[in-house]
């Protein structure tokens, strides 16, 4: 049985980039893999279709809370290898599964993701919340101030509409700080922290450490090739040509800038101050320097 | 000698042939010529006799035929759809 490792992140923090890097690492092609055909990692944990397939239940007729009660069992079922086409020949050494849900419990008190039965560990991707804000606003096609509101909202959810069916389940993200804390402080499974900024500045070393956590030791030449095949330029080129299925509808440019520190010219001083006020303690914990703390203390 | 191998289901769609291994659920699609070869090797035979037959049925020169048949049989071999045994 191959281990399941969650790729957990608040949106826009390098999760998809890492998945595409891994897909290229495992690809046998000598050209970059098609970003719309990533077969080597599972689709997102909140996907409705795989749940319906495993549970045999039409989840569109369940309420969000009823679904959350069944989610732990479905993750444990998948982690036990039951969803692989051929468990004797899993094709890949690790089952990576992306997830945007915070590490929370359902109303039965069970870990939504099934605890140790649902996954052997998690790689948690974090990014400077000031950079997340601008990218998240673009992702949701909303003003940056609204993105900052949502990042501070402990009740923020994806796919929570009840007048239609979404292909993903409701995902409780909590606030940006709350999301990160929920993953860092849970004690069910080991977590390996990856800062987007480190992945950007030394991709090979950071990816190698994350892969080592998952029990993978890549060949250096193949890793370099995978990094080149997952470059932001290549991802943007493919998205411009065929779109990206995992992007929100009508959002062009899922792969936007891929830089660190862009907030300095994208955010107003009051927006920077707000993010630092909302998330200061978690920024400190992750090593993101605050720029406004001195000013505020003087005031 | 070329022998069919494995538990393949086969069905014609137009003049093409789709095959599925009942155990693994793997699929192979064959063109009309491929479908004809599959039909012919229902009776185990040598590559030479197979090629003689194809050269007679299709407008193809023996060298090209042999090269394409070898490639085709290699593909079927990779899918474990045939096995080749020495003639005795």
């Amino acid at each position: 049985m191959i281990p399941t490792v969650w790729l957990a992140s608040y949106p826009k923090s390098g999760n998809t980039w890492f998945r595409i890097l891994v897909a290229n690492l495992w690809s046998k092609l000598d050209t970059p893999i098609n970003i719309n055909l990533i077969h080597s990692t599972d689709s997102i944990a909140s996907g409705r279709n795989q749940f319906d397939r495993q549970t045999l239940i039409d989840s569109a007729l369940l309420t969000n809370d009823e679904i959350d009660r069944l989610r732990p069992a479905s993750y444990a079922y998948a982690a036990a290898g039951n969803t692989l086409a051929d468990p004797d020949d899993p094709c890949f050494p690790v089952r990576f599964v992306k997830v945007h849900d915070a590490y929370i419990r359902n109303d039965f008190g069970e870990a939504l993701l099934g605890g140790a039965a649902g996954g052997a560990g998690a790689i948690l991707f974090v990014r400077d919340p000031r950079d997340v804000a601008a990218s998240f606003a673009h992702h949701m096609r909303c003003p940056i101030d609204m993105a900052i509101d949502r990042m501070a909202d402990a009740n923020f959810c994806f796919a929570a509409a009840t007048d239609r069916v979404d292909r993903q389940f409701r995902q409780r993200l909590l606030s940006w700080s709350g999301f990160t804390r929920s993953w860092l402080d849970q004690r069910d499974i080991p977590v390996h922290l990856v800062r987007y900024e480190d992945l950007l500045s030394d991709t090979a070393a950071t990816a190698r450490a994350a892969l080592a956590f998952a029990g993978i030791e890549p060949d250096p030449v193949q890793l370099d090739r995978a990094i080149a095949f997952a470059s932001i330029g290549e991802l943007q080129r493919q998205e411009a040509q065929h779109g990206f299925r995992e992007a929100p509808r009508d959002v062009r440019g899922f792969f936007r800038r891929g830089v660190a520190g862009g907030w300095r010219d994208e955010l107003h001083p009051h927006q920077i101050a707000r993010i630092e006020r909302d998330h200061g303690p978690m920024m400190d914990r992750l090593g993101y320097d605050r720029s406004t703390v001195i000013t505020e203390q003087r005031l | 000698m070329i022998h069919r191998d494995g538990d393949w289901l086969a069905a014609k769609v137009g003049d093409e042939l789709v095959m599925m291994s009942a155990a693994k659920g793997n699929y192979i699609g064959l063109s009309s010529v491929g479908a004809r070869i599959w039909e012919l090797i229902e009776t185990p035979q040598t590559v030479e006799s197979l090629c003689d037959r194809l050269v007679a049925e299709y407008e193809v020169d023996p060298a090209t035929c042999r090269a394409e048949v070898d490639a085709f049989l290699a593909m079927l071999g990779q899918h474990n759809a045939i096995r080749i045994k020495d003639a005795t």
Partner: protein
Amino acid sequence: MFSYRVSGLAVASEVDLPGLIPGDPDRAPEVTIRNAPVPFALDDPEMVGPTWQRAGDRFLLRIPDIARFLLEDGRSIAFEAENGADPQDVAVFLSGSVFGVLLHQRNQIVLHASAVLVGGKAVLFCGASGAGKSTLAAALGKQGYPLIADDQCAIEIGDDGIPMIQADGRQLRLWEKSISELGLAERRGDAMRNRLLKFYVDPAASSERPVPIGAVYALTEIRHPDEPGIERPNIVDATKLLTVNAYRPMLIHRFAQRDVYFRGGTTIAATSGIFRLKRRLGFDGLPATIAMLRGHWTQIGLAEAAS
């Protein structure tokens, strides 16, 4: 006893099942549904899923806080409600998810699809929940194409090799958003569950007889800048599409149905055609999608060219 016809089968049920078409009470039932004690587990199950177990011809499905369902030999369904669940909630799963499993258990081909009648033949739209099957069928209904089935399509290959779909003129099942976008408020019936904004919607017209299949479309969402279109996949992909779009694909392997779906897929690909319908998701694109479909129906001989 209530009598229904579901996917061509005569069903006798102890409970009322909203949304199904009434059947002939004098016909001997092929499936019976009764309220009876159902265990939490089966003895010696050979397969155990997150919500289900299988032991020989007994199949147990549990939806916590709704009910447990025991399906035996494709012929009977026993159910026991849990924690005083609303009978309406139990009924909605009985006639949908549970019946779908029963069709797999009966070794039938059942697709996750909706179907409408075009030129005397069935046109099927396959896709997972949220792919837009019911919305497209409802939009075509407004254009005068009668509904044949919504959500589940049971297929049989006749002795003459012609694939037929069982008419299941059950009602459309649409979300509030679709109902308002399509202007179907006056046809809206009861909510499927009292806490859910998903409703039964009366189709303007429906077909009640088995119909030969004219075309099967797998709904595929594309993103900008890919262009909408209808493609005929190669024969291998076409055959696989039928399996992928089974009502519950996992059961094909669990119920040893691979050969049945293979035969079905190749027969439909050879006689009717299996296509990919590539379009953007959303209500704005529906008129263009319908225009594209009409053009394709002329091309494949299902409809006459507009004069």
